Each structure stands twice: as C-alpha cells, then as structure tokens.
C-alpha cells in the first residue's frame, strides 16, 4: 500500500529493546487500590457506593455523568475503605476524588452482562456496551471511546484506522498486545467496524515492530476488510491526524476531526478492551503497562489492575537499582512526571518509566542559535523558535497569530533543539494563557450581553413608566375636560371630539 509523506517528524532512539521481547506478565492484585473517578477527558464519574461497602470485581462503583464521561468499575472484589481526595497521576500531584479499595483476595466477579449477539447488534447497542464498560482511548488521550464509536450517526464514515503505531520510545505494551492477543484484538476491531458501520479498516504499525506486524497479518489472513499496514517509524506517527495523512494522503482541516474525512481512529489496546466488553461483558478494569527505563531492574509489560499504585508495579519489576533522575507516566516524549510513587495506574497509563541521568536529555539551556532544526522537524509546520521568542516576551497573542494553537505538543522540536530550550513548555504555557483569555473574553461577552439586556429592560421599564404616566395625565386631562364640557354645556363641537380621543387612550 502506498504510504504518504508526512511533514517533519523526528527519528527517535526507540529504546524498545528493553522490553519488546518480554511476554506480558500479570501483575498480582496489590494490597490496596486507588481508583480515581476521573481517568478520562470530560466530566468525572459520580460514586454510587459508599465507605465500607463490599464490592465485587467488575461492579459499577461510579457512574458516568454527561455525554462525554465514562463510568468506573471495581478492579477486584473488596471493601471500599475511603472515598476522598488522593494525589492524581499528574505532575501537579493535585488531589482528585479517588475511591480506595482494600481487596479481599478472592477476586470474585459480579454478574456480568450477557455478551452481545453480534449477528444482530446495532451500532447503538455496541456503543452503549462500550460506554457501560467505561472504555476510554487507551493510547493516552483517554477520550471516552463510545462517543467516537457513535460518530457514524453524524458523519459519513468510510474507514476505521487502528493506531498500533506506538511511536513513543520505550513503550511496547501495544506491540506485545498485538503479538499475544492477536485474535481477540482483531475481533474487537471487527466489533468497532460494525459499530461505526464501515467495511474497511487499516491497522497501522510502525516499521520497528515486525513481529507484531507478522502476527496481525497472519491473524487477519481470513478476515475481510482489515489490512495491516507498515508505517515508517517516525515520531509522531501515532498522532491521529498525521497517521491518517500517512495512510490516505488526506489532511484534516484545522479545528476539524478526522471524521470530517470519513475516518475514525482508535487505539489498538482500545480494540482489545472493546472485545472484552462486547464478547465477555467485562468492563475496563485492567490494562497492559510497560515498566521500563535503565533504573528498573526487571523491565517488562504487566497486565495491571486500574488503581494499582505505581510503587507496587515497580516492586513487581524488581525495584529500582538507584534513585531515578525522573519518574514518568507515559512515554518519554509526551509522558508526565509522577509526583510520588503512591499514585495509581489509570486507564490511560501506557507506561511507567524510571530514567537514569545518562538516558535523559541535557538540561543546560543555551540561547537559541536559530539553527532551524525545530522548524524542519515540526510535524505541524510551525516555527517553534519564533513562537518561543514571542512567548518569552509574553506576546501570547503574537504566538496565537502564528499558530501556537495548532501545536500538538509532540515535543519533537524540544527533542532536536541543540540549545535544550524547553519549547513545549513555552507552548503549553501559551495555550493555557490563551484558554484563560478565551474564558475571560467569553465571560466578558456574556456580562456585556447581560448588561445590554438589562439596560434595554431598564429603558423599556422607563418607557413603560413614562407612557403610563403620560396615559394617566392624558386620562386625567380628558376627564377634567369631560367634566368641563359636561358642566359648560354641549355646544362646543371640539370638546366632543377630544372626549373621544380621551376614550381611545383608555
């Protein structure tokens, strides 16, 4: 198949060999699970159990709230110890509402919903099942998957693209999944195609994963409509819009979605989760996590319950040989630093990395020498150095005018910068500021409209009042005149006319 060129992109040192050859191991149930109620983009789920309740594995413990939201299920059976704030796996370490569960070790399942009869399941039924299972985009974006499976109702869709690019270095969880759970993943893809109402699907795998490619191709040998495609290992190939461009040559308009082109992209791990939900009735309560980095003694891929503390997972991986220079959740390009080891694994956690000083980027920031490496590498066609210069002078509007909002924060520019300028940091800052400004402007606009409405109302009230007053005076005058004519006599023709006027006003 023809692969189209994408603009820019960086060739990264993949460092996947640390874990790529290792079979997925199952992480045993830890002593405690911290299950955050917001693990997705959108509104947080609302707890429906309370302190001290006994819950079964797979039982709904927090229900979704709103259209863009996802429910949360108990990862194992046990007792709810606490519902309250707990540090989120986010660099800020800010607390989020989290349900703490003490497992009873029995791992007893709740009665699961019946598998869907796929011969006659409608697209809505599949999407509903996926929604009930709390499935979110597992590549890290964590957007509720059901919303994206429902797009067939609003868009004229042609194709499903399964993202098995896994372009982040170190991570191999999707690679292993495609090799070890090939068949089920493919069944999941079929279910997704049925939900979207498309007959064609492309599974994109970066060229650095030949085994996964082979496994998937063999698995699809007798499956109609699914093609496995090698895409070049060029970061950020896994970016939705870039992947679609590489596969079809079509460019998603700015501010638009790939659905505008008739294409929906889902992560390959999401496809596996869809299989479990549709065919087994199981909610999303575990995921495969790559634990890697040179500090980790026994790197590997672990099938891990959602809510497992990072510390338990690291312990399972043989612990750390030394104090890591950096602990990350996700890949080294777009992953986030972990504030502490107690934070839990969530639905979007593709990896836990503990990095040594020697495998990390140099942090000595030098002045920009204008080499333009960042321009060449930018997959969006931005001028990162120009943006950074403007943002450095607090000119966020200037940065906006040259496209900072189009930045996908992939970090390629930052990676190639010989001066080690924290470019992405600048852009994220500017995007935050612009968002704030937008909200402020919106609020101001609303205030202005309200104020205008009020002014108008006041004016109307005033007018009403004046009219009423005028009416009153006119009426009084008329009455006075009427009295006068009555007493003076009926010879005056005009008087009668005036009275009529007065009556009209009444």
């Amino acid at each position: 198949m023809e692969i189209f060129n994408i603009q820019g992109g960086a060739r990264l040192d993949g460092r996947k060999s640390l874990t790529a050859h290792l079979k997925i191991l199952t992480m045993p149930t830890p002593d405690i699970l911290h299950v955050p109620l917001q693990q997705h983009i959108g509104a947080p789920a609302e707890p429906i159990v309370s302190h001290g309740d006994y819950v079964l594995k797979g039982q709904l413990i927090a229900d979704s709230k709103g259209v863009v939201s996802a429910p949360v299920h108990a990862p194992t059976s046990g007792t709810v110890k606490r519902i309250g704030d707990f540090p989120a796996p986010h660099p800020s370490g800010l607390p989020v509402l989290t349900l703490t569960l003490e497992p009873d070790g029995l791992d007893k399942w709740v009665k699961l919903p019946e598998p869907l009869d796929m011969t006659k399941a409608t697209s809505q039924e599949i999407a509903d099942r996926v929604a009930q299972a709390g499935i979110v985009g597992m590549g890290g974006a964590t957007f509720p998957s059901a919303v994206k499976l429902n797009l067939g109702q609003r868009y004229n869709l042609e194709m499903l693209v399964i993202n098995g690019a896994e372009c982040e270095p170190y991570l191999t969880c999707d690679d292993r999944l495609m090799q070890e759970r090939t068949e089920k993943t493919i069944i999941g893809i079929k279910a997704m195609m049925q939900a979207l109402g498309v007959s064609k699907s492309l599974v994109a795998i970066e060229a650095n994963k030949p085994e996964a490619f082979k496994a998937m191709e063999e698995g699809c040998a007798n499956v109609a409509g699914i093609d496995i495609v090698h895409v070049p290992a060029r970061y950020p190939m896994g970016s939705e819009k870039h992947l679609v461009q590489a596969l079809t040559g079509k460019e998603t308009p700015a501010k638009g979605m790939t659905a505008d082109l008739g294409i929906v992209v889902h992560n390959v791990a999401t496809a596996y989760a869809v299989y479990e939900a549709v065919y087994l009735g199981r909610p999303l309560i575990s995921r495969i996590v790559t634990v890697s980095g040179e500090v980790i003694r026994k790197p590997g891929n672990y099938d891990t319950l959602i809510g497992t503390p990072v510390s338990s997972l690291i312990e399972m991986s043989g612990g750390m040989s030394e104090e890591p220079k950096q602990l990350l959740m996700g890949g080294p390009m777009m992953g986030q630093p972990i504030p502490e080891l107690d934070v839990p694994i969530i639905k979007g956690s593709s990896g836990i990395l503990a990095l040594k000083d020697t495998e990390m980027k140099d942090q000595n920031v030098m002045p920009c020498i204008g080499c333009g490496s960042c321009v060449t590498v930018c997959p969006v066609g931005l001028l990162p150095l120009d943006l950074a210069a403007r943002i450095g002078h607090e000119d966020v509007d200037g940065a906006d005018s040259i496209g900072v909002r189009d930045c996908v924060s992939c970090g390629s520019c930052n990676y190639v910068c010989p001066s080690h300028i924290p470019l992405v940091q600048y852009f994220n800052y500017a995007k935050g500021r612009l968002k704030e400004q937008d909200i402020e402007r919106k609020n101001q606009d609303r205030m202005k409209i309200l104020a205008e409405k009020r002014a108008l109302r006041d004016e109307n009230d005033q007018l009403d009042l004046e009219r009423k007053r005028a009416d009153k005076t006119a009426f009084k005058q008329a009455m006075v005149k009427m009295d006068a004519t009555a007493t003076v006599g009926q010879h005056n023709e005009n008087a009668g006319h005036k009275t009529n006027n007065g009556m009209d006003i009444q």
Partner: protein
Amino acid sequence: MTQIPPMSGPYLRKNKSVRRSMLLVMAALTPATAYGFYLFGWPSIILFCITLGSAMIFEVICLLLAKRSVSIFALDGSALLTAWLLAISMPPWAPWWIAVVGSGIAIIIGKQVFGGLGQNVFNPAMVARVALLISFPLEMTTYMPPIDFMSAGAPSFMDGMGIIFGTANFDAVSSASLLDSIKTNIGQGKALGDIMEGQYSPVNWALGNSISSIGEGAALLLIAGGVALIFGRIITWYIPVSTLVTIAVFATIFNLYDGSKYPDAMVHLLSGATMLAVFFIATDPVTSPMSPKGQIVFGIGLGALVYIIRTWAAYPEGMSFAILLMNALTPLIDRYVRPRIFGRTRKGDPLNLSEKP
C-alpha cells in the same frame, strides 16, 4: 538563561548541544586548515594562533563586562569558530595586528554588542573581514604563492615570527589572487584567455595549490568537510546547494554570452572563498533563515549577489559582502517565507474539504 529550569518534557536523550555543533564544524574545517598550514608554513600557523587567542581574550572580557557565565559561554565554541573562520580567510602572511584587530571587531562589534551568542544580525567573521578589507586593503590583499613545508624556501618558525610581527624582511614574491588579477586585467581591457594563460587549472584550484587565503584554497577538502556536516545533520544542504547552483547558472550564462570577458563556472566555484563560504559561513545558523524554503531563497540571493559583486563591483571578492547583505535580508525572509501549517491554507484559514489544498 543559566539557571537550571524545572525538568520539563520531552525527556528522551539526544546528544546535541551548541558546543558539540561548533566543535564538529571546527573538526570539518580541520583538513582544509591543516592543508593551508602545509602550503603556507609557519607564518600562517602563527597568524591562526594569534587570531584564535585574541578572540578568546576579547570574548572573556566581554562576558565579564556583561556579567555572564564565562565557563558556559566562553567554552561554547562559538568565539573559537568565529576566529577560526576569520583566520583562514586572511592572507597567510598578514601582520599580527591585522589578526588582533580582526578578532576584536568580530567578537566585540560583530557579536557581543548585539547580546552575544544567537543575537547577532551579521556573521561576525564576515563583519571583521569586510572591515579589515576596507580599512587595510593593502595588507588584506597581499597574497603569497604557496611554499610548502617541504621545500627549501619555506620559512622556519623564527622566520614566521619575524614575518608576522614585522621584524624580518622575508624575501617573498607577493601576488594577487586569481579573481583579483581577472578583475584588474579585464578592467584594463585584456581578454580573459590571455589573463588566464597558464593559470587556468581547475585541478590545482580543487586541490588548493593556488594563491589564496590560508584555508580557502583546498576546495575539495572544504567540500568534503561540508558534506560530512550535512550528513552529520549539523548543517542542511539547502544553502550550499542553492548558492552553488545559482553561481554556476549565472557564470555559465554570461560565459556563453561572452567567453572573453566572463570566466566560466569552474573559476567561480573553485576559486576564491566560494566553497568555504557556502558550506561554513553562509550556513551559520544565527544569521541565516530558519525554514528550509527561506534557506533556499537565501542561497539563491547569495549566489546572485556573489556573481554580481565579483563581476561588476569594485571588489574582486564578492563573498563576504554578499553574505553580509543576505544576513541583513534574513529577518525579512523569515517573515515572509513560512511553512504552511497542517490543516490550513497558506493564508492560515482551515482547509476547505471541498477544495484541494
């Protein structure tokens, strides 16, 4: 800029730094420079060392005055590279004070007054070279034919010191560079064929066995260094290729038009500072455009200016002037030549799906 920022992503290691780039450029210059030393002997080595040493002294003084970290900025390699480029574009036996004044102009006026590394508008080495050329035309255009180390007439170290510091009167024939003599003689109405009689030798130019500055001569060694830098991803091919092609096109057109007046492309490409400039000076990241397209525009402009200045202006060596002029245009190029943003038209509106982008 010196404080350690809080750790921000991405975290993946990449062995790239300003110092590494500067060192690699110097490494790529080493063969051509070493060959220059071989051709021109001790005087050129002494001159080279004076230029680099004085540049470092000026750099440290400036950094101290600006209260910036000497250990970080003086060792970033940029001052050394500037001085290196200046030194090898000087006549091999120029007096010591030319070197000192030159590096002073390059470091102080060319770079530090703008705010140091990354802030200068013009290439510092070219600023210094042009300033010297205009101020001291005699010293800057007195060239020596190569006398290699092995030959009997080569000056010893002490002779070299004497030549550079002006205490010895070494007996050498000074002469003009090829472009110089073409310029002067065409001006006097001679035909190109007569001027170049016995001088037309692309092989010698390519090897560097010609009258030139210390490091400008060996075109092949310079090309090799430049190509290595391109493959090492230190520089891009856009400026060198677009400049060379433009010069070649201009030279060929005019040579075909009147071969007795306009030398062919070989003369323009292989003599003078062409190869040194297109690979090592015009590609200076600070003073060249940032986008690939901008760099191509820059290269075309540079090539055209070089040819125009060499052919019709008063100075035979157009390269340094052309580079300064294009440096001045760089902000303008950067303003107007920008890549198209993903999902948007050139004007910046979101793509309209019913039309082709």
